[in-house]
């Protein structure tokens, strides 16, 4: 095995100081980004561990043996490389992954994929490895700057290295196409062709006890194993619904724009200037829409400070392998607090998980000199992406609820303390009654806005179990009279109607909150 860097003539004082500094920096949690940059400086071109020693359990050793055979097999067979490329382009659950069991019987120049790999395995065969890890998978990663991916892989000339995604270490064992074995630091992304051996976390086999409980039929049935997606929604055959502009929201914009009316008057009550009274409709609910941030660095630093939160780990990653993040995800809570005429106000909580790669995009910097003369990428900067949780929350009936909602957003970490309570002053509209001209006996809203009535303001104590020591991302006031659609832009593809964002100046989160049809 190559050892590219060696410590020479290092005295003990320097060694002790270095150990202390490394220990302090490794344990610091305040500024992960800074640490990443420091560690890259220390370790970018070094191997970080002994290849043989890094495989810690039966599954990892199985992946090691398979990977050694895989490199040799990729070297030997153009047809095998083409099979991996084709299957990766076909994709499993939208990721460029190849389930090895599924391709084992496909033909190569010298026999099947299984026989080719078996010829390069020493002391065991592929079936033994399937017995340990039926969902053994090869990922063809998308490297930054389109350095390498399934689509641009030239199988006639490019023989990729093989990296292994471990369960027990963030560092990455890698076998180059010359069969040399190395371990590279977790901060490094190869800038050369590489595939990744991993266990597929979104597929289960019939050897797992919950196989029959999982909804749906197997997507592949072999001689010894059958495979299902662990959730039917991971299947690429699951079609995403098509979204379009809601005409009622557009009509509300058009009816209200000239008179500065309330768009929600039309959406919830059908009220517009020519039809000033109307009953409440249950067809709409205020919905948490697209969320993003204008300050990704600040948001990342704010919410990634706890153990268990994702942090940047640029090498071909774990859970969602198109990204480069340490395991774990964020869990956001939107607490919607609304005062009620019926008495005590209400706080309702809406929680959803978000992966780091759904909120943040990473930018990279190219370097050279990895494992001799190979290229690599390191983390350079972070930018924001948008995620739409699309969660219906509460319908807004002004007869029973106040004219404003307060939304408190936090990212949940391990809770230390729960505490009571907050008090909210609210305005209530009073223009409700029976309109005999409508021919219905139910109570309707009488008139635009507050009608001819006076507003009723009162304070209700709202009992909220406040979770302390969470990443508080701010309170946001939503008013019934806030515009839902802000403007209209005519394009060749149809008219665009951008919706209001709340929190644009907050620094952490901005998000849509608007009425959306729920039935």
């Amino acid at each position, binding site marked *: 095995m190559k050892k590219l860097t060696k410590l020479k003539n290092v005295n003990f004082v320097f060694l002790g100081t270095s150990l202390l500094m490394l220990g302090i920096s490794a344990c610091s949690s305040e500024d992960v980004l800074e640490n990443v940059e420091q560690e890259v400086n220390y370790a970018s071109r070094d191997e970080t561990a002994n290849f043989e020693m890094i495989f810690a359990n039966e599954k990892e050793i199985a992946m090691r043996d398979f990977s050694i055979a895989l490199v040799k097999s990729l070297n030997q067979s153009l047809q095998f490389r083409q099979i991996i490329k084709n299957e990766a382009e076909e994709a499993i659950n939208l990721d460029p992954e190849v389930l090895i069991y599924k391709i084992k019987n496909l033909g190569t120049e010298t026999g099947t994929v299984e026989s080719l790999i078996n010829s390069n395995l020493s002391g065991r065969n592929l079936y033994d490895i399937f017995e340990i890890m039926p969902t053994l998978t090869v990922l063809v990663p998308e490297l930054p700057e389109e350095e390498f991916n399934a689509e641009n892989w030239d199988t006639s000339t490019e023989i990729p290295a093989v990296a292994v995604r471990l369960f027990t270490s963030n560092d990455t064992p890698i076998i180059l196409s010359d069969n040399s074995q190395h371990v590279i630091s977790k901060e490094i992304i190869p800038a050369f062709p590489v595939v990744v051996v991993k266990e597929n976390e979104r597929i289960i086999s019939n050897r797992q006890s919950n196989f029959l409980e999982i909804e749906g039929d197997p997507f592949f049935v072999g001689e010894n194993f059958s495979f299902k997606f662990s959730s039917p929604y991971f299947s690429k055959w699951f079609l995403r619904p098509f979204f379009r502009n809601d005409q009622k929201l557009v009509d509300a914009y058009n009816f209200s724009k000239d008179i500065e009316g309330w768009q929600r008057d039309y959406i919830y009550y059908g009220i517009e200037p020519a039809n000033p009274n109307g009953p409440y409709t249950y067809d709409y609910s205020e919905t948490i829409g697209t969320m993003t941030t204008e300050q990704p660095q600040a948001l990342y630093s704010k919410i990634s400070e706890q153990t268990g939160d994702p942090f940047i780990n640029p090498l071909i990653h774990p859970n969602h392998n198109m990204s480069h993040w340490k395991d774990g995800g964020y869990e956001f809570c939107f607490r919607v607090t609304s005062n009620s005429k019926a008495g005590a106000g209400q706080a309702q909580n809406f929680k959803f998980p978000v992966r780091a790669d759904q909120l943040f995009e990473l930018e990279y910097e190219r370097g050279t000199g990895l494992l001799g003369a190979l290229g690599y990428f390191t983390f350079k900067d972070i930018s924001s992406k948008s995620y739409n949780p699309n969660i219906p929350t509460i*319908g807004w009936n002004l007869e029973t609820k106040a004219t404003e909602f307060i939304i408190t957003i936090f990212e949940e970490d391990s809770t230390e303390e729960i505490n009571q309570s907050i008090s909210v002053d609210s305005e209530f509209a009073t223009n409700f009654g029976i309109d005999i001209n409508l021919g219905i006996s139910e109570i309707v809203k009488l008139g635009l806005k507050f009608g001819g009535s006076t507003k009723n303001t009162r304070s209700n104590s709202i009992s909220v179990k406040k979770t302390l020591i969470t990443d508080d991302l701010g309170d946001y006031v939503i008013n019934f009279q806030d515009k839902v659609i802000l403007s209209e832009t005519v394009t060749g593809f149809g008219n665009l109607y951008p919706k209001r964002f709340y929190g644009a100046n907050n620094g952490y989160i901005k998000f849509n909150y608007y009425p959306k049809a729920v039935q």
Partner: protein
Amino acid sequence: MKLIKNILLFSFIIATSCSTDDEIQSQKPESKDIISLEYEGKRFDFKNLHHGKYTDKDRNLIGFFAEAEIVIDDQHKNRVLLLFKTDFKNNVEFAGIEFTPFKPAPTYPHNVYAYVYQYIMTQHGSPFKIDIKMENGRITGSFEGYVHRSADPFDMTHMDPVYLSAGTIDIEAKSDNN
């Protein structure tokens, strides 16, 4: 020689300060704490409970909470949180429940989210029964009934509650995990 000892001492401090939670937990005896319940026909045994403080508005300690979650897959899970007022001796009073089932969104199932069911409304004909006692620092008991997203009578007309059955509690009364 003294220098080498110092280096070894530094190394030991660093190694111990970087111990993972798993390593720390492995040294503790396994907890007997458990909250069990049935939801949508399935039984869930919540173990490895996380305990925390329950405080009043002046942040005086008035009780504790215990929460745990069962991960079904990498996005689907159920979480339960029970809140108690107690003197940590003999007296205990149930102070609330949160049940949070994460599910795929009905209209866009790639997204997963959860409504938090936290209100109990026996007075509105939607009973939630809980019977608990405290002995030797442990709270034991049973519960069953509906929990709601909202206690507003208007919301209750169109927001379905969830029913939790065969609930049992057997937990230590403490406000932290030590």
